[in-house]
Structure formats: structure tokens, C-alpha cells
């Protein structure tokens, strides 16, 4: 559980990146933090594993205040995958890259081997075991970065902009992966401004603007609310746009799922044709 209690954060340069942020992430929850560039999304999630400590207020992870503990001990519980994989890949082989964190956390040699193999096969990287991570494509590098974090099986997983630079197939895989993590009761926080991706997953959505949270609720209710979205310059998902333009059909307003939309439309059309 992550408790964010009236947190404010100001960078040394004087930029006030977070103001009066308060909410709780429960165990097993799936949350998407959305908002335009510079809204403070990355700054906020960096508080979850103690990389940044609040200037005002407190952040508690499983009841432990982040100010009173080290990043290394929080990191074991809170896995954080950075936006750009090139900011963390440095090893000679993919295998060593994945083992890096496990060694830092002091796992046994046997366990390390097992976990590396598991992570490699989970993200379909087995054939790259002995390859240099620098030789891989962008999407593959991103998967190596993800594998290197998943390997130690953190309870909470934070993904900063996981869909940037990924094609549709990769995004679909990512979505499947998140669903799978959810069945394992993992807490997942993603930072993104990919509305379509969020619409497909329908998680709880936190909407941010200028360091504040302007909306907090189920994706369905927030993504289908153009006024709220406009505040943080997020364009509604296409389904919502189409439904609002078809207002003669008197369709419900809070639909973001493609299949649900299709069923509703078909029903309406059938009624009309009859």
C-alpha cells in the first residue's frame, strides 16, 4: 500500500513540481497516472521508491515512511522501470543485465540463475541470453529493462511511459502482461499519456495538471468526461469521441471499451432497422 499524504515537492532549481498531492494506492490496484508533459507524473512516482523525498508531507510504503529508509531497501519492494532503457543498460550480456539487481539485493547464486531464466522466458528474450543489450532493437531493450526489474519479483511495479515507441503488438503484449500481474495481486502504477492504451485497460486513473491531481476515479468515468480531460490537455479516447458525435442515437456517455461500444451500437442499429 502506498499512502501519499499532502505531498509537496520543489526541485532545488525552484520548480514546484508537486502541490498538495494526496491519495492512497491499495494492494493489488492498477493505476494509470495521466497528464500533459511536465505535469509532475515522473516526479510523483519517484517518491514511491524514495528516489525523491517530499519537501512537505509524507509518503508511506507499507506503513514505512520513505524519508526514514534508503532507496535500496524500498526498491526491493517497489520495482521502477524507467522511461528510457538506455539509462540503465550497461552489461555485456542480457543475462548479466538481468542479474545485476539480483546481485545488489544479495540473492543466492542458485536463486539468481533461476530468476534470470524465468525473466528471460517470461519476456521472450531467451534467444538473446548472451547478446549484448546494446545490439538489440528499441522495443527489445525496453523488454530487457522490464525483465531486469521483474526478476526480483517486486510487490509494486511502476512503469514510466511504457508504451512510448512501442508498436501495437508490443502494447498488446504489455497489456496482457499487466493483466497477468494483476491476477498475481501485484500493485501496478503506470505513467502515460496514451489514452487509447488506458481506455483498453480501464484502470483507476489519476489525472494531473501543474503538480496537482485534478481527477481521481475509474478510467471509465474520467476518460469519458471531456471537461475534466481538457484541464490536463488529454484528448478523450476515440470511442468517446465517436459516441459524443452520434448523440442522436442517445448512447450512454461512459463507454470507453471497444467491445462494449460495438455491442451497444449493434443493438441500437438493430432496433432502428426493425
Amino acid at each position: 500500500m502506498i499512502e501519499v499524504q499532502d505531498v509537496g515537492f520543489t526541485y532545488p532549481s525552484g520548480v514546484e513540481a508537486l502541490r498538495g498531492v494526496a491519495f492512497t494506492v491499495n494492494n493489488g490496484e492498477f493505476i494509470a497516472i495521466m497528464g500533459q508533459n511536465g505535469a509532475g507524473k515522473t516526479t510523483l512516482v519517484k517518491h514511491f521508491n524514495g528516489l525523491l523525498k517530499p519537501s512537505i508531507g509524507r509518503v508511506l510504503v507499507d506503513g514505512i515512511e520513505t524519508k526514514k529508509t534508503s532507496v535500496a531497501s524500498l526498491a526491493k519492494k517497489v520495482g521502477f522501470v524507467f522511461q528510457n532503457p538506455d539509462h540503465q543498460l550497461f552489461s555485456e550480456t542480457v543475462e548479466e543485465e538481468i542479474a545485476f539487481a539480483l546481485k545488489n539485493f544479495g540473492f543466492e547464486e542458485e536463486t539468481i540463475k533461476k530468476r534470470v531464466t524465468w525473466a528471460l522466458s517470461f519476456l521472450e528474450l531467451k534467444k538473446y541470453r548472451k547478446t549484448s543489450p546494446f545490439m538489440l532493437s528499441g522495443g527489445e531493450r525496453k523488454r530487457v529493462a522490464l525483465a531486469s526489474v521483474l526478476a526480483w519479483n517486486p510487490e509494486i511495479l511502476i512503469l514510466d511511459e511504457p508504451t512510448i515507441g512501442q508498436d501495437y503488438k508490443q502494447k498488446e503484449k504489455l497489456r496482457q502482461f499487466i493483466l497477468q500481474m494483476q491476477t498475481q495481486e501485484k500493485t501496478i502504477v503506470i505513467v502515460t499519456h496514451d489514452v487509447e492504451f488506458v481506455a483498453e485497460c480501464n484502470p483507476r486513473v489519476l489525472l494531473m495538471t501543474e503538480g496537482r491531481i485534478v481527477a481521481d476515479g475509474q478510467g471509465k468515468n474520467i476518460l469519458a468526461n471531456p471537461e475534466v480531460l481538457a484541464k490536463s490537455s488529454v484528448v478523450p479516447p476515440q470511442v468517446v469521441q465517436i459516441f459524443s458525435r452520434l448523440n442522436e442515437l442517445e448512447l450512454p456517455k461512459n463507454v470507453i471499451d471497444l467491445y462494449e461500444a460495438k455491442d451497444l451500437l449493434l443493438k441500437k442499429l438493430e432496433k432502428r432497422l426493425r
Partner: protein
Amino acid sequence: MSVFDGLKYRKVSSPIHDLDPRIKFFYVCAIFVGAILFWTILPLLILFAIQIPFVLLAGVKREWLRSLRGTIFLAAIIFLTNLIVRYFASGGALLVTDLEFAAAMTLRFIVLVGSFSVFFLTTSPDHLGLALERTRMPYEFSFAFTTAVRFVPVLAEEAQTIMDAQKARGLELEKGNFLKRIRNYIPVLVPLIVSAIRRSLELAEAMESRAWGATKKRTNLYILRLKQGDFILFVITIVILMVTVYVRIYIDVPGLSQFLSGVS
């Protein structure tokens, strides 16, 4: 990181920012010469005080103070080394003059850093490049220099992000003995170097696609021209130079303790 902040140029307009970089550089050199000519506190204090109106006029007080604060560690080392050397040189006795000497050496260092900092805080890399070009240095060199200067803050920021990313994977930079601590930096340095190389290759491609080196004789959008302020600074600098050299040769500058007892 704070030392870098003290050298980071921010685009604003002030009488000092608008000065010609060549004249400003001449001024910094004059302060340099002055600082190196003297071994006693008083003239160094005056040289230090001369910086203050510049800093205030340029409106960079905060950044300037931050860069000075960034030198505290080095300044302390200089002070202690000088003190220890004097202590042993004079056979284990420490006089007031020794303290004064160590303080003067530290002050000299602070004057040097301070004047450099004013220069970098108020001179845009572009202007610096233009000034270098005017010295008939090949354009490739002046371009490389300005690019390097411009990318320092970018690199510093990137280093911070990389450190965060590795800390999130359980890296503890401060852990272990001396050798281990150096090795801890490998996961930070490798991505930093790789991305710097990648960026430079991209930059080279972008430059070539914008016809870098297509003509031998380049023209510039901005042309450096000496204005009234530049002449004033030039005259001030000449005066500073003449006074320092005159004082150094013809006047026996008293030490601080002598000076104070003379006054009272």
C-alpha cells in the same frame, strides 16, 4: 552539480550580459593577473570586491553565490595545505602571518573562481563561439568548443537520471571500500558514455543534413560589434591592470595585521 549550476548561462538581458565576450574575457584575464601578482589579503580582498558590482548589475547574485559555495571544499583544502606547509617550513611554529598567507591563497582561489563564474554566467555559448571565430581559429574548433560547453548541463542532468535508474535497481553508490566505490560508478558511466556517443553521432548526421561545411566562408546571423559599454569596461580593465602592476612594483603592501595596527 552545484559547481555546474554556477557556470550555467541563462538567457537574460543586463548591461553585463550584453557586453562583448572578448572584452569580458580581457577583464577576467586582468583579474587573473592581479590575483596572481599578490600574496597578501588586502589587494585580493579589493579584487574580490570589484566583482560584486558586476554580479549585482548582471542580476546573477544567487547563481554566483551558489558557485562560490560549490568551491568551499576545495577552498578548505587549499587553506589547510598552505597552513600545514607553512607550519613545517617554519619549524613547527604558527605565526599570524602564516594564517594570513593561507587565507590569502584561499582568497586568491576564490577570486579566480568568482571572476570565471561571472564570465560564464553572463556569456552565452553562442557569443563565446563567435568570439573564438574572430580569433581566426578554424570554425570546427570553435564549434566543438561551444557544443561541449552547451552539453555540459545536459550531461549532468542525464547522469542524475541514470543514477536514479540504477539506484532503483538496488545500486548503492556509497557502499564498500574505496575501490568498490569506484567500481560502483561503472553502471552509471557506461550508459552515460554510450548515450553521449550516440548523441554525438546523431548530432553529426543532423548537421550534415543541414549542409555543414557546404561553403568555405560562413556568414553569421549575429555580428559582434563593440558598443559604448565595451569601451567603458575596456578602460576599467586597463585601469585595473595599471593600478595592480603599479602597486605591485612601487608600493610595499602591508599585511592585514600590520595594516590594522597602523590604523588604530
